[in-house]
């Protein structure tokens, strides 16, 4: 374990930024936190988490896939990608680090998505333990420990110091490169910090939320649950929950005619949108109830069924905070899951 005093954090970030692009949560003009590129004087946000999840780094909201040049009947396909530089994401919370594992299972399973894989291989993740979990947090439900985040390097912030521990070679290489800015230390302070966080975790209102009743093989039982209709009743069909979600990974592939060629790009899509499954001859999810059900069944049943029981939710609480009508996965889990009739 190594440490650095907080007043030297700026120097440390500057050192990291010398050889890598460095991104970290900073306070935005509207008061919320957002990942931004570090420049001299950029301060780490004190907010618990960013509104947009860090999935953007590996799975950007819009990404060009290729370009086509057309002449007469002929088509030329141009791969427009350029080589990426290494980059570092600093201050990723435990829940968001876990979300990368969930995305990896989709994009890195055969056939590998090379766009995602390339970004993933160039990114170094420095996680940061939470100090002030919010009432909307329920990461424990999915077995995530906010006091011990994973990532290439784990970090803990106390009142006066910041502690680092490398979790793999990639992380070790980065920490070593920072040389004298870091001092070796024992893990006493970090252990104390962990204990403090865990004490708070026991006070969280959603601490007893359970995944009981969900998981692979539950399709038949839950698909026709009568509660879907009332849960989805007020749903506006907007894409807020899907776009702030760190694990939502559905995308669309579209063409844009620039006037001198066609750019094929992919962008986030939302199962909440009415045209998500619309085909030339019809739509198999006609009402918001079906679209709503798809989102939660995917996270709580379909995904675990295909991924050894791993749920596709990390309990970050973004959808709880941002849904315009305050409908969210917690309400769904409590209504149709194991807590039924609580």
């Amino acid at each position: 374990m190594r440490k650095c005093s907080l007043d030297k954090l700026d120097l440390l970030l500057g050192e990291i930024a010398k050889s890598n692009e460095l991104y970290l949560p900073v306070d935005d003009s509207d008061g919320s936190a957002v990942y931004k590129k570090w420049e001299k004087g950029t301060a780490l946000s004190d907010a618990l988490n960013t509104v947009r999840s860090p999935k953007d780094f590996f799975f950007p909201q819009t990404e060009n896939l290729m370009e086509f040049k057309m002449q007469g009947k002929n088509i030329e396909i141009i791969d427009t990608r350029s080589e990426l530089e290494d980059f570092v994401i600093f201050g990723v919370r435990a829940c968001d680090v876990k979300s990368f594992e969930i995305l990896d299972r989709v994009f890195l399973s055969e056939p590998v998505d090379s766009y995602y894989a390339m970004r993933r291989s160039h990114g170094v993740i420095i996680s940061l333990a939470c100090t002030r979990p919010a009432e909307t947090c329920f990461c424990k439900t999915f077995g995530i420990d906010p006091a011990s985040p994973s990532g290439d390097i784990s970090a803990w912030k106390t009142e006066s110091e910041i502690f680092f521990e490398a979790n793999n070679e990639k992380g070790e290489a980065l920490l070593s490169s920072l040389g004298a800015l870091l001092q070796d230390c024992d893990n006493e302070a970090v252990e104390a910090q962990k204990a403090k966080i865990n004490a708070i975790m026991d006070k969280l209102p959603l601490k007893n939320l359970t995944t009981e009743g969900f998981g692979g093989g539950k399709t038949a039982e839950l698909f026709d649950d009568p509660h879907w209709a009332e849960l989805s009743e007020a749903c506006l069909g907007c894409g807020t929950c899907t776009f702030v979600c760190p694990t939502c990974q559905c995308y669309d592939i579209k063409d844009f005619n620039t006037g001198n060629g066609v750019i094929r790009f992919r962008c986030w899509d939302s199962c909440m949108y009415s045209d998500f499954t619309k085909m030339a001859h019809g739509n198999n999810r006609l009402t918001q109830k079906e679209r709503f059900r798809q989102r939660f069944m995917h996270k709580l049943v379909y995904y675990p069924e295909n991924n050894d029981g791993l749920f596709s939710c990390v309990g970050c609480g973004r959808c709880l905070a941002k849904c315009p009508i305050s409908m969210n996965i917690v309400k769904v889990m409590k209504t149709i899951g194991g807590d039924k009739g609580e």
Partner: protein
Amino acid sequence: MQKITRDVLIDKASALLSDGTVSCVLGWKKGEFDYDVTPAVFTTHDELIKDFVFSDFCGANFSKYLVSKTKNIEGRILVFLKPCDTYSFNQLLTEHRFDREKVYAVGIPCEGMADISKVRAISGEGIASIDTSGDKMLVTTLYDDEPVEIAPCDFLAERCINCKSKKHVAFDELIGEDGDVIDSNRFDEVARLESLTPDERFAFWQNELSRCIRCNACRDACPACTCEKCVFDNPASGIENKSPANEFEEKLFHIIRAYHVAGRCTDCGECSRVCPQNIPLHLLNRKFIKDMNDFYGEYQAGAEVGMRAPLVDYTTEDLEPGEVFDRRDTDA
């Protein structure tokens, strides 16, 4: 705090349910916390007792729900309307979006609704409970033993601080006393932006709109956006339902969204309330409202049923677009 209590509303709803005036009630359902209420339809007294809430966090405008909820129902639906909701209600009636006979509207007074992000900014994250029964809001967090006191001026949503009317313009029945149209300062921020240089305005909007994630929540929550098929749902538009690829598409979406409701927007402020990225979208709508008031005379969408909006009307003596700027420049 709200002057009217949950109990009064439940009594009213239960009475109307039991005498058969209405078959269901569109109301607010309590959530996990003290602030996350969800619009819901109640059909029995027991359901109301169990889940109905009314507090400073019941900001959602119910009028738009009537478009879908009045279809396929037996009897009438009871809806509670705050003064600003009644304007949207009238506007939707003007556009023949729902059947008035299917609705029983109960006007309720509103003391202004809270903006949870403002509350959070003061109390800090980790809200354990919120007491809205007193004049000041008492917020207890997981981290402090003593509650934080927040005054209305600090927690009220922007749209409520600049409330345009406490008067109900449509109802079948009113609970409490009706208020008046208020001479609010709602156009001050628009005027401030107008007084900036074009470069400053460009920088302001560039920064605000760059946060847009195109979740479409502003459109989906807007009571004026009730097209069966929106241009932003049409694949042929090239910009349907998808994230903005660049700054141009951000602007395109927001200009067209605001433009399409120009003259029909009642300034209910739902667009800004639902925006997950806190973009002050209502300023775009207010700009149109302010312009139309300036150019064509005062007009409040939804004030009465059947009014003709400025953009579907004309006089032979209207200003030329060029004169618009000349006039503003001489004013300034």
